[in-house]
């Protein structure tokens, strides 16, 4: 059983976002492996531990993204591919074309993604890769069982759950709750340093820059929301009086009752 896990390197969720031009100001910004990708990676590592095979981590991004690959290798991925390029100027389909081309170069039964890259919050690339490769997809997955030649997958939908059976290869996008991701061990960190990262360019994959960058969905502007100053504050030491005041707000201002 071989898996490919596609990861993205994103600003830390605790970071305050600053804007520079049409993008995020990366000065002093800490980057992390996108949180949902951690569930994807953990699931792939567990399958490898149970059934053998390789876990290849794959990313499309600038030089700093190599750090994310190292972190994944330290946790238990066995191979790493880095397609270098400024993915922030590519739209989701551009990114999907790059990843799909790279995925084709390695043996795989399952292709994992996080359900969305935290930050861009698109949730598009996984299903687009599935379409480009002609694979079935199961999105927002909270449970995965690998059987003989097929998988049984739990998918989260609005306040409910679907159980889906699929053939392989397939694309899975991971939701929080799929598993409990492990931390890297010191041994893992040391071993990861010895694994070579296979670095390629978009052109190496036989793709044209003109089909990947500044295409289809183009950034016009990036803006911060207006600061909220906070509204009225009341004393709640008399609970019944406070409740009446809240109800008045709900009915008269929010008009929700």
């Amino acid at each position: 059983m071989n898996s490919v896990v596609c990861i993205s390197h994103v600003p830390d969720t605790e970071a305050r976002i600053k804007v520079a031009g049409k993008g995020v100001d990366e000065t002093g910004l800490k980057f992390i492996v996108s949180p949902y990708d951690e569930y994807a990676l953990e699931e792939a590592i567990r399958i490898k531990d149970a059934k053998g095979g390789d876990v290849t981590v794959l990313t499309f991004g600038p030089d700093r993204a190599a750090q994310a690959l190292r972190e994944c290798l330290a946790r238990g991925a066995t191979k790493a591919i880095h397609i270098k390029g400024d993915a922030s100027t590519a739209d989701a389909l551009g990114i999907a074309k790059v990843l799909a081309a790279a995925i084709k170069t390695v043996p795989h039964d399952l292709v994992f993604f996080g359900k969305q890259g935290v930050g861009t919050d698109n949730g598009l690339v996984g299903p687009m890769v599935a379409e480009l490769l002609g694979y079935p997809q199961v999105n927002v997955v909270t449970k995965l069982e690998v059987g003989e030649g097929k998988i049984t997958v739990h998918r989260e939908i609005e306040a409910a759950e679907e159980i889906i059976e699929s053939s392989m290869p397939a694309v899975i996008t991971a939701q929080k709750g799929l598993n409990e991701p492990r931390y890297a061990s010191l041994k893992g960190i040391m071993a990861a340093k010895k694994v070579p990262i296979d670095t390629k360019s978009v052109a190496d994959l036989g793709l044209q820059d003109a089909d990947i960058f500044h295409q289809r969905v183009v950034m016009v502007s990036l803006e911060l929301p207006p600061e909220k100053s906070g509204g009225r504050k009341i004393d709640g030491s008399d609970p019944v009086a406070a409740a009446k005041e809240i109800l008045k707000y709900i009915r008269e201002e929010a008009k929700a009752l």
Partner: protein
Amino acid sequence: MPGILVYCELKDGKLKKTSREALSIARKLAGSVGGDVVAVAVDAAYSTEKNAAALEAKVKEVQPAVLLFPGTSNGRDLAPRIAARLGVGVASDVDRLAWTDGKLRARRPVYSGKAFATVEITGTPAIATCRPNAFPVEEGAADPRVVNLPVPAIETKAKTIETKTPEAGEISIAEADIIVSGGRGLKEAANYSYIRDLAHAIGGAVGASRATVDAGWIDHQHQVGQTGRVVSPSLYIAAGISGAIQHLAGMSSSKHIIAINKDPEAAIFRVADLGVVGDLFQILPALTEEVKKAKGAH
């Protein structure tokens, strides 16, 4: 005439609210885009592969300038699939749409609402998924004739073998108009009953902070914030939630926010329209009673 195609979802034969929202914005755009608004639906159990094939055939027939989806689980599953098939781009989870210089412009919250990106979608059709609760339903405009798409008889690689429906009265935070959320101030899992009681009385969904989900007090489906759901209901009531940046990012676009917290310095008060400094264990039951009385009086 090439116009706007809206992929709709039905429940018990009726349009879901999120689909009515997408239709409403489609009607607004239609004047500047030109052409008709065509509403389509697949009135059968959802399958990515079957619905994609059904919709692909309709897109090729109608050749719309714009293709809109409700930003539901299935809308967000299908939109990227069909976009990749057609070789066009998608703007996901948009909260504003405009037709400018012959192109679709969309605004979308990024970094869980810490910033807003405005993007231009250059392909044809221009595809967007509409964030639930972002576009008001225009009565009348949202009730056109819905064209049922024929489901192609193709063998699919993935099959849904079971659907577990929610418990009665449970509403998903993704689509809810009112959300009552609890945080660490609840002190223990059993005290979520304070949140549930108010949510049921007011007809809202139960939300949660990351801290309580990570502590195992409540399922992740309820988590609001950067690694949960980004929500924008009409009314958001936060009780015992201090307001970590990731949580604020996930809910501060709600139209009306009430916060109840015993710490007057809690960050949640910065985004609250009405802040109540006090004990949630006393205020929530009192509020639940008041809501029940108010509803009973109707």
